[in-house]
């Protein structure tokens, strides 16, 4: 029994997956007409991927003990580059390259400020958020642009097409899943990921063990910028539109996804699988609450409850405490039988 529990608790992201399943279970009871069909899930697979890609990058950043508040601006700025290049050259592929490069540039500048100059990441990236969002508004003249004709491009089909015939699974769900798999392997199986964990755990230890702390941080912020650029492309292509405030709704949602996934704000430990499910929880809540019929005003309150429940569950179940909980439950049940 004990060894079963010991193995169960080793499954990464299990508590948060349970929260997601429970949540869908509740929604299936409260609004079966919506949640028993497949269309609502296809809609989640369409809307969640940009947020998920952002959350995966942020997971790595938070694991390193840092924070990045500039990703909403990257979604806007990279979206601008993507849209502008497409509208002026007709090539979405060039636009994609520009968006990724632009995001990486923003991240690289963040990394230099943080690692080389020593600006705390919360301040450097907050400044970056204002700067790049402001630059985007300036360059776009505050307007939004329609990407007319992009739906006929092969890249459009590749990135956000609908797969499996009448099921119409959005392709971006697979791109985001792919990014999640890559991020998991980077963090858990690559020496760059090990450097991220040790830097977040204790930068002095990392340094005396020969890890280049500064270079690790610069690479990390650059990677996060790059992922922000990719999220921008997924979003802009799906919507066929670029608008200057397209990143703004993501700030708190993305952070919520990371934290309810079980990644510790203290750094040193990151759960990519947890972030994956966390993003789907956050992305499903509003639709679920609205479909339940209790009204959209409840969304925030329910989000807060789910966040609190997830974090508590992660603390109780994570790090070997599941065995202790199981012991306690067994103890209680034994007492009941004796009585």
């Amino acid at each position, binding site marked *: 029994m004990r060894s079963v529990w010991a193995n169960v608790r080793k499954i990464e992201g299990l508590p948060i997956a349970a929260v997601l399943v429970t949540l869908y279970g509740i929604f299936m009871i409260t609004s079966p007409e919506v949640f028993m069909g497949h269309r609502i899930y296809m809609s989640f697979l369409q809307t969640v991927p940009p947020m998920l890609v952002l959350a995966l990058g942020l997971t790595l950043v938070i694991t390193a003990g840092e924070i990045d508040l500039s990703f909403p601006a990257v979604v806007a700025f990279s979206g601008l580059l993507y849209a502008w290049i497409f509208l002026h050259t007709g090539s979405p592929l060039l636009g994609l390259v520009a968006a990724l490069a632009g995001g990486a540039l923003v991240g690289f500048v963040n990394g230099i400020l943080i690692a080389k100059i020593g600006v705390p990441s919360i301040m450097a990236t907050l400044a970056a958020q204002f700067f790049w969002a402001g630059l985007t508004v300036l360059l776009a003249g505050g307007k939004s642009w329609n990407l007319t004709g992009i739906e006929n491009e092969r890249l459009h089909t590749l990135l956000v097409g609908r797969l499996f015939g009448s099921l119409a699974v959005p392709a971006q769900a697979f791109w985001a899943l792919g990014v999640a798999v890559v991020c998991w392997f980077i963090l858990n199986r690559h020496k*760059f990921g*090990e450097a991220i964990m*040790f830097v977040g755990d204790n930068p002095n230890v990392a340094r005396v063990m020969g*890890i280049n702390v500064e270079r690790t941080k610069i690479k990390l912020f650059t990677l996060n910028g790059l992922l922000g650029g990719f999220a921008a492309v997924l979003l802009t292509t799906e919507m066929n539109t670029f608008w200057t405030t397209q990143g703004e709704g993501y700030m708190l949602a993305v952070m919520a996804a990371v934290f309810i996934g079980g990644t510790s704000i203290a750094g*040193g430990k990151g759960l990519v699988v947890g972030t994956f499910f966390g993003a789907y929880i956050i992305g499903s809540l509003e639709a679920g609450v609205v479909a339940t019929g209790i009204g959209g005003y409840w969304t925030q309150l329910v989000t807060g409850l789910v966040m609190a429940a997830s974090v508590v569950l992660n603390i109780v179940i994570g*790090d070997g405490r599941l065995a202790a909980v199981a012991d306690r439950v067994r103890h209680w049940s034994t007492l009941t039988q004796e009585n």
Partner: protein
Amino acid sequence: MTEDAANRFSIDAPASRGGEVGTSGCALRMVDIQKRFGLVRALRDVNLEVGTNEIVGLLGDNGAGKSTIVKILTGVYPASAGELYVADRQVNFRSYDVQTAHRYGIETVYQDKSLGDKQVLWRNFFVGREITNRFGFIDVKKEREIASEIMVNTIGFRGEGITVDSTVSDLSGGERQGVAIGRAMHFDAQLIILDEPTVALSLKEVRKVLDFVHKIKDAGKACVYISHDLTDVYEIADRFVILDRGEVVASIAKSAVRKSELGDFMLDYAHGRKDAPR
């Protein structure tokens, strides 16, 4: 201790016991090493030799320059002047860093910054020099096997409950130092530097650490044991080097001094009674 007694102890004498200095040179030789931080002279003309299987206790009060020496030896920062030889190879300070020090066979066990608390043991064994394929992906199976081998055979962790998948925060202070010492021995260190490894440990845990240090000696390796606590050092070291305000003031073979005499000698420095020119 009297002035006569103090004079008995030669300064910078290559007094080494248990080593093979005569036949195969030194594990470490520092010649006129200086370190300045701006106007502050942290080290002045430090000369220090460590034989190939010698354990040197480096003693000194706070601020004597012990940790400055450690940081120069381990490549955290270079010396301002002087020469450093590791296993009779001269170190070029311009290209000397932590990785190079590892390649030279210098391993360091710190008081508190040797291990990542939230990481599993097998990661701690290989961090900074992972076994990877050419794309940088870690061979987890191999790292775990070797880590397990080190734990059982090198440091003798046969106790229940601690495996390569344990997190460092689950270990006691002494066990942590054991892991760090085992790691150092695995990477074929010729010289292991222990920087105050027993500070903040209970007596029982100190005992464990000292037992690990005996294994370093048994394995034929050299060791610099840094401390300001005589009790640990006296048991372990073959020779004592005493540092005061950036200078080596004495080098004393263990056979030439009793523990109480050594204590008096150090107290004299702590009270500033040795300020007169030698």
